[in-house]
């Protein structure tokens, strides 16, 4: 019996209808989950601020002004200056670029690699699944920040290494969630059909199974964004992340900010708020997205 070419249902729907459906879904999300929408708005603002930092920031974030060291918030410097006379607001604005870059890169890498491993593990099952899961269990035994600390101490500091260091602990978490979803998908007739059609394992995993774990994948992605931003700030605060004079929120909380915490509290308060707000927004958005995409929660 010949198997016909699968029909791409999405391609058959007119463009205008698709856009309308998408807008309706966004509208419904905003109406039903206002907190999630608020989180999403903050996330979008963060992204836009990061992208347009060089247009928005009133000052060069690296430019020192020794005549304005530790200046209080004022009309000139809305959020004050740091110990080198650098404008705190400008550094926060540029810092969002660092945070978003690290956050998205880590979350994307961690969730994607984890999803591929998880789905592959479920697909192959048996000894492969057993082995992969035990390895993941080993990694899962370490809290995210501890494992990231260990990795960064091996690889060294710098944005690239920090991204790898934070992404690695995310992989087993993503693998675990993806695997549990993929276990059910593995038993679906279309997977059997693909196997019977003689498709390679790689194709079955990547083209037939992976797209069907997209909902948990998106949830993990948004949840990991907040975690990654927090982990980057923590590593940088500990001196293991990005280095001065790069504008980064975690970096703004260490060094002189600690020394002058009593006399120039704005140095620590505003970057701290930026971190809290970003992480809170990502978590709100992630939670709401989970609720929206999870059929059981949606039913409730």
């Amino acid at each position, binding site marked *: 019996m010949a198997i016909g070419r699968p029909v791409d249902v999405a391609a058959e729907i007119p463009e205008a209808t698709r856009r309308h459906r998408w807008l309706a879904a966004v509208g419904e999300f905003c109406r039903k989950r206002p907190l999630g929408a608020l989180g999403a708005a903050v996330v979008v603002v963060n992204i836009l601020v990061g992208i347009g930092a060089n247009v928005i920031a009133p000052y060069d974030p690296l430019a020192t002004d020794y005549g304005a060291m530790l200046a209080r918030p*004022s009309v000139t410097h809305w959020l004050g200056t740091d110990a080198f006379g650098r404008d705190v607001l400008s550094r926060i604005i540029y810092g969002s670029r660092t945070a978003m870059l690290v956050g998205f890169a880590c979350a994307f890498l961690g969730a994607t690699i984890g999803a591929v491993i998880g789905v592959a593990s479920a697909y192959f099952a048996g000894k492969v699944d057993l082995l992969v899961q035990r390895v993941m269990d080993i990694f899962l035994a370490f809290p995210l920040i501890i494992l990231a600390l260990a990795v960064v101490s091996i690889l060294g500091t710098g944005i690239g290494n920090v991204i790898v260091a934070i992404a690695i602990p995310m992989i087993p978490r993503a693998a675990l969630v993806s695997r549990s979803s993929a276990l059910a998908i593995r038993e679906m007739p279309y997977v059997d059909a693909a196997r019977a059609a003689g498709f390679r394992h790689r194709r079955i995993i990547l083209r037939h199974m992976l797209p069907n774990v997209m909902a948990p994948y998106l949830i993990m992605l948004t949840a990991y964004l907040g975690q990654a931003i927090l982990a980057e700030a923590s590593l940088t605060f500990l001196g293991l992340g990005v280095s001065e004079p790069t504008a980064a929120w975690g970096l703004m909380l260490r060094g002189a900010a600690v020394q002058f915490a009593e006399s120039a509290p704005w140095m620590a308060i505003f970057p701290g708020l930026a971190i809290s707000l970003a992480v809170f927004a990502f978590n709100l958005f992630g939670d709401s997205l989970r609720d929206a995409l999870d059929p059981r929660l949606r039913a409730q």
Partner: protein
Amino acid sequence: MTDVRRRDAPGVPRHLFVLAAVSIVMLLAGRGADAQERPRYGGELVYVVPTEPASYDGHREGTFALVHPLAPVYSTLLRFDPTDRTGTKVVGDLAESWTVAKDGRTYTFKIRRGVRFHDGSDLTSKDVKASYDKIVNPPADVISFRKGQYTAIEAIEAPDPTTVIFRLKWPAASLITALASPFNWIYKADILAKDMHWYETHVMGSGAFVFVEHVKGAYWAGKKNPSYWDKGKPYLDGYRALVVKDGNAQVAAVRAERAHVQFRGFTPAERDSIVQALGPKVTVQESPWDCVLLVGMNHEKKPWDDKRARRALTLALDRYQGSQALSKIAIVKSVGGVQVPGTPFATPPAELEKLAGYSHDTAKSRAEARRLLKEAGVPEGFAFSLKNRNVPMPYEPVAIWLVDQWRRVGLQARHDFIESTKWEADLREGNYEVAVDTQCSYAVDPDLDLYKFQSMGISGNNYGRYVDQTLDDLYQKQSRALDAEERKKWVRDFERRLLDEEAHYAYTLQWHRIIPHSAKLRGWTITPSHFVNNQLDGVWLSE
């Protein structure tokens, strides 16, 4: 962007400055009173030590983390006068007196009688000779950290129990200073004869205090030595050195009066915080610090093999503005050359200004820097890595300042703030382009301060990786000049070649030592070195 309209003073409340000033005035008044005040006996001095050493052997280590807790247990042949703020005046410790032969090649020391080790045995010239033999000519498997400072010594003799003779290959202007090293503890000859490594894991000296215990990661303790040779001393019953690695915890310990002092130094903000908390109960002592951060340029990497590029890096620095600004937030202050400003061999400011990067006309210097970079073929926006040690103070603020200064001549330095061990290994192996390097001595002395800058192969820590025969000759000339004026001339020539003509290295700013301590602590004077004045024999507690 430097166009800032509001020019506030740093946000340190004015009353803190007033309080600090009052404390310093009180200190000065107190120092006069110290001389008249009768020392009080009793009490335990509690101080904080920020880190721990790898071994207990002073000859092998180079860290204050060993000297601070263990110097009270040991004696040295000579020492720096504990009342001298310059830390350059040498007095006898075990040596009662000494003479120098006319040719400057024979030094004869008379050793005090009646000095005993803590095990009850007598300390004689035999012990001094054995200790110095270990320092100057150690066996192959024994590490002597400062061996290179004693290359002039040809032989050490102990003709009788109270005489030690040092014979030199050539006259050495710095020998007396070098023999006052706070690390050159006198060990027992019999123990060394049995095991040269014994002192790496054991403590037994002849100092004012007897070692009690060291609980790793927690504290060191010592108690009064009742048989100390200097009758009537020490005044304290004992001491306890608390190991507190975290900077904030160190400040908290002094603020909460859990510790009387931390002898290494605090930052200006930490000083202000302690002064604010304790008011008249604290005394602040400050001094230029014989430590400096240097800009090391790897001569084996382009474009730093070209002296025009190296000169450009130093010309870009506005040291005077840097001094004004950084001294408010970091432990750096004075603008100096190769010697601590104000000390005998230091270059006067007017002469210093003639060196590259020391002019007050920064715009002209930076224009010159840009011209040199262009001539050397270094393009605008040239990027390079600045390797730095991940010790926040003062390495990080100085590096931020450097990166900013170089941006002003079109250079983009990428700050690599790396772990100390890797930083040291990278510098040693030449695995860097430009790096923040450091130079620290236990005394302000040209031999000690300049040794590092001799050619690779002669100096073990010339990380610039250059060979400069002229510089080596100048080092030898100053080292052998017994006349102070002649020596000064050679030191100036050395400085000009090092920092200007060849620009092998660039000096940043001299460190500044700030010690806020309990006003109860008396009889202790700050010096430019955090390695000296830790024997505590003259220290006492007023209540």
